[in-house]
């Protein structure tokens, strides 16, 4: 049991909405598929197993790409890549963002003003543009660089949210009571601030996860993501673009995969909000 769970439990019943179930199912499906690819795929994702640009068939559920590789296998592997990017980017964004946000919330007026202004400027840049700049500044496109770039680029949003949430908590009397009780700043963060802002942050992380998946697909589409033979959905889409009129299934299948994961994540986040939102404080 973590500190965050209890307040979710009693009094108001935990409402699990159908949307939340749909979201959780979609995300869960992708997770299962992604994990499965670690031990099994229908075909070798890099092997040429059929005719080029073959339409969907019983042997190749999603058809084949222009090199004759099984698209369904590549999409399955793509799920693993998308999820790694999401997890990695959210981990980086939350590590940087939560730290900076907490620092800003605790900082003196001047420091906070500077940090807040900096964050506002960073947020004004689209995440993708920022990530592209970071990839361009590094020594080359790789999956790691993409994760790092997306993580850094989205950390400002997490930082700003953390700062606002933490400030709200710090204004409560129980923080004054904690100081009077001799609790130090680190203790206040650990005991009071994090448990109270966590539910809202988690919801935001789920949304950031979806954005990171899209950002990675976009980077790959632009050739700035994981290089071949990594079967990123973005790369699959980009490759399918050339043949979209002759073999549209090449774009449709990865598109469905991408959209279903992102929609799933958004529904999941919305549902989490309903379950975890700490709005009922009184009574």
């Amino acid at each position, binding site marked *: 049991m973590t*500190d*965050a769970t*209890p*307040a979710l439990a*009693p*009094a108001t019943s935990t409402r699990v909405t159908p949307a939340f179930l749909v979201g959780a199912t979609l995300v869960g499906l992708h997770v299962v598929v992604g994990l499965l690819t670690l031990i099994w795929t229908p075909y070798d994702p890099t092997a040429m197993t059929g005719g080029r640009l073959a339409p969907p068939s019983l042997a190749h559920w999603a058809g084949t790409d222009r090199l004759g590789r099984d698209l369904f296998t590549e999409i399955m592997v793509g799920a693993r890549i998308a999820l790694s990017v999401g997890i990695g980017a959210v981990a980086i964004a939350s590590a940087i963002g939560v730290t900076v946000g907490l620092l800003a919330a605790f900082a003196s007026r001047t420091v906070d003003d500077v940090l807040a202004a900096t964050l506002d400027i960073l947020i004004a840049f689209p995440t993708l543009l920022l990530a592209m700049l970071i990839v361009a500044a590094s020594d080359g496109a790789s999956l790691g660089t993409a994760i790092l770039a997306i993580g850094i680029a989205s950390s400002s949003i997490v930082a700003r949210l953390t700062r606002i949430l933490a400030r709200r908590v710090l204004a*409560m*009397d*129980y923080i*004054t*009571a*904690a*100081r*009077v*009780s*001799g*609790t*130090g700043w680190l*203790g206040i963060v650990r*005991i*009071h601030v994090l*448990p*109270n802002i966590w539910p809202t942050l988690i919801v935001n992380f789920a949304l950031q996860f979806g954005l990171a998946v899209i950002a990675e697909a976009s980077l790959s589409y632009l050739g700035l993501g994981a290089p071949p033979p990594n079967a990123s959905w973005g790369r699959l889409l980009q490759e399918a673009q050339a043949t979209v009129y002759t073999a549209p299934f090449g774009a449709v299948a990865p598109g469905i995969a991408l959209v279903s994961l992102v929609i799933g994540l958004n529904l999941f986040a919305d549902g989490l909000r309903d379950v975890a939102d*700490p709005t*009922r*404080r*009184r*009574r």
Partner: protein
Amino acid sequence: MSLVDLTAVSFAYGRGRTVLDGIDLRIEAGRNLGIVGESGSGKTTMLRLLLGLARPSSGQVSFRGAPLDPGDRSFMRGFRRAVQAVFQDPYSSLDPRQKIADIIAEPLRSLKIATDVEAAVTEALASVDLPLDAASRYPHEFSGGQRQRIAIARAIVSQPELVLADEVVSALDLTTRIRIVELLKALSAKTTLVLVSHDIGFVALLCQDLVILEKGRIVEQGAARDILSAPQHPYTQRLLESTPRLPEFA
């Protein structure tokens, strides 16, 4: 013995507004003190100074005769252990995500007081007349009056010598209020109380000494009995006249 002293204390925000001006105040063990003032009197700032949460712009706050030094950890630990507080809004003063047991135990844990935490929490709950099973529950399961009792339990768990109470009954219903007064009265056998309030009736029920604050200055101070029976300062007189009372019906 004097527990906490304010000597020639003034407080101002930046270069601007002076909130407190030339305050001399002595809190003595065994004599409950009421600090009475309306909005803008500076009573909240005075409370923060007394708790060591703010530092005076000039003058000195001292604990048992020694100046308060936020840098001296073991001194501050002794101060925090001896001086605790209860706040006005029982909805804001308890962390909604902590169990009551953890809320009450916070001073013990943070001040590293070597004691049986569970036993101390049980004892504190008993002294505020709350059932023991409250320990495993969360703040939202309690009413305003019960929450204020929990806050009081937290304030007394470290067995402090002084408890500062900031408008602790203002947010409560009359019948709840009178029960909290009775509880505080029982507690003041063991610990000295400083009640900060705009409500002179509430303060008068519990305090031997009074300080009347107006616009950052002490306009009158002394024994509660004397001030209530023969208020000297015009502001004190106005305050007493304005306090509504139930008319007497023969």
